[in-house]
């Protein structure tokens, strides 16, 4: 039991650790150490030495072992109390000399400032960080457009292979999860909507609710969130890892532009798949709503489809098709930008991946709000 000692004022005896081996006696201004003066036996020794008051002599003649921690405690006490060390063995003396020769001060911790200052500082840094990130994403988008024009102007082949591979991972592989999610959301909207509308005896308007909400907003929005989580994060993590292993640098030295080889195919894939996925999700949601209407509200499927065709204006469909590629570009660009920002260590890959998802979802929702206001003022109700 290292450090489980007790102190008795009457004798001035101080026992360190259990058993007689680790013992240390103090008489007046002298401190005698005994037993093993090692990190395992230290325990509360520093505090107890401080409690003893001024010490003028440190006797090491009875110790059986000493390590760097023990030597440091001796040196520290020596400096604090201006005490002398006696009885050090050859080994102990070597350790002590190594410490005594070095009088320079080392910084171990960074600046410690009051909590409120740090809080303010963090708030400020975070705000500037978000602003810079936004500028960075816009700048990256610009660089990507320039790279696209250069590629077209130089008539370099578009990397279809890379794009098609991304189609698979961004689009096809996402079909089951997006289908299921939208289907369930369709059911939830129909079910919750019908409960409210029943109060007015207007259950049949559940169809309007499901149809318009899915095509115009929810189908695409949920898809965008899912794609940001699935693919935006994957883009950031893949590119980030490539940055760490210097693959991106290697590409540059070979003369392959990373923008053309890595970024453009990914952004192209997410831009093209987004409208397809959004439409697919809307249809799944409408099917989900339809099944609820059939089972829960006893509206036959044929009537349901008939009503859907009547109440969804073509403009809703166009709105979705206009928004979808924009969201796709946004998710692709954010993911690739964050991936390209990875520097130095693996922790950054995690951080950047997280911020790719968060930034993409946030920007998608903000843009969606703008679109909603914009299209409404166009008169596309």
């Amino acid at each position: 039991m290292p450090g489980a000692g007790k102190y008795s004022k009457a004798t001035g005896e101080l026992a360190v650790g259990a058993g007689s081996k680790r013992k240390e006696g103090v008489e007046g201004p002298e401190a005698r150490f005994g037993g093993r003066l090692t990190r395992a036996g230290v325990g509360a020794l520093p505090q107890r030495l401080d409690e003893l008051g001024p010490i003028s002599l440190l006797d090491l003649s009875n110790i059986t072992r000493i390590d760097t921690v023990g030597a440091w405690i001796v040196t520290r006490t020596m400096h604090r109390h201006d005490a002398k060390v006696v009885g050090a063995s050859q080994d102990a003396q070597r350790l002590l000399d190594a410490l005594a020769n070095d009088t320079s001060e080392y910084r171990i911790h960074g600046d410690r400032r009051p909590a409120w200052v740090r809080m303010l500082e963090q708030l400020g840094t975070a705000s500037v960080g978000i602003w810079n990130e936004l500028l960075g994403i816009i700048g990256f988008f610009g660089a990507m457009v320039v790279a696209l024009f250069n590629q077209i102007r130089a008539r370099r082949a578009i990397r279809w292979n890379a794009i098609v591979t991304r189609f698979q991972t961004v689009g096809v592989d996402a079909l089951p999860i997006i289908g299921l999610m939208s289907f369930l959301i369709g059911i939830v909207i129909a079910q919750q909507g019908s409960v409210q509308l029943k109060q007015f005896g207007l259950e049949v308007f559940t169809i309007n609710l499901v149809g318009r909400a899915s095509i115009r907003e929810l189908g695409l929005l949920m898809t965008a969130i899912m794609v940001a989580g699935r693919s935006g994060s994957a883009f950031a993590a893949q590119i980030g890892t490539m940055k760490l292993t210097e693959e991106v640098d290697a590409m540059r030295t070979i003369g392959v532009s990373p923008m053309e080889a890595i970024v453009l195919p990914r952004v192209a894939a997410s831009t093209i798949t987004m409208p397809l996925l959004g439409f697919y999700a809307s249809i799944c949601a409408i099917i989900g709503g339809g099944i609820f209407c059939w089972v829960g509200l006893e509206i036959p499927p044929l009537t349901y489809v008939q009503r859907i065709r009547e109440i969804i204006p073509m403009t809703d469909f166009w709105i979705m098709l206009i928004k979808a590629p924009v969201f796709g570009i946004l998710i692709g660009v954010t993911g690739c930008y964050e991936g390209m920002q990875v520097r130095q260590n693996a922790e950054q890959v995690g951080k950047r991946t997280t911020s790719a998802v968060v930034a993409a979802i946030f920007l998608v929702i903000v843009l969606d709000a703008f679109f909603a206001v914009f299209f409404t003022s166009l008169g596309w109700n």
Partner: protein
Amino acid sequence: MAELIEPEKFDIAIKVRGLCNQFGDAVIHEDLDLDVRSGEILGVVGGSGTGKSVLMRSIIGLQIPTAGEVEVYGKTLDTIVDEEESRDLRRRWGVMFQGGALFSTLTVAENIQVPLREFYPRMDSELLDEIAAYKVAMVGLPNDAGPKYPAELSGGMVKRAGLARALALDPALLFLDEPTAGLDPIGAAKFDELIRELADTMGLTVFLITHDLDSLYATCDRVAVLAEKKVIAVGTIPELLATEHPWIQEYFNGPRGRAASGSNDALTRADRKS
């Protein structure tokens, strides 16, 4: 159409003048000058953090210097506007990164073919495969290494594969960033030998960053020492030993330096006997 570079016409392959590099407050290089002669193996040494890798990155255009000029075969990368011209320059060098930097989604053979496909899109795939096989053999990789992915290779094989890719375009200039770091002594010695051999047969100019004293003795014609934000000395190892700079003395005459020079003397003597 810009004129193509002819590396044979240049005595000095790389010319660095007044190079300054700065990251925030930290000054890495200040007014750094360096010449790399055509056909030599130049070792670049220096303590950790003296900016050896940054110097290499400045030369190959991955790092835009704060000030100063870098000329490779008479061309400065950041003043080249014409894309053809910059591609022509890039084709003249091969770079092997510290961790190999192989493209992890491609096999070894595909990795070697990347530069070829980029610069010669019309080359047919049969020829590409044959060239890849030739390069695999050239760097001493086993016969079955071609279809393997980088994750399946050992550390030494990754380095050899990285070297094969760097040599894919038959460059005149080869940049090696710590090629023997992390290799066992036998593997490292073999790698040194390989570099020396390739440099002699292909007439390469090699810019070799290393911490490995054995590598320096075994391969380099000249050594450049980076310290105090500059190249403080360039020369053959005996020339450097004659200088009085404390860092150079400590580097070459420290316990490891002496061991390396001693074993190398033994090595060359043994070579002469055989």
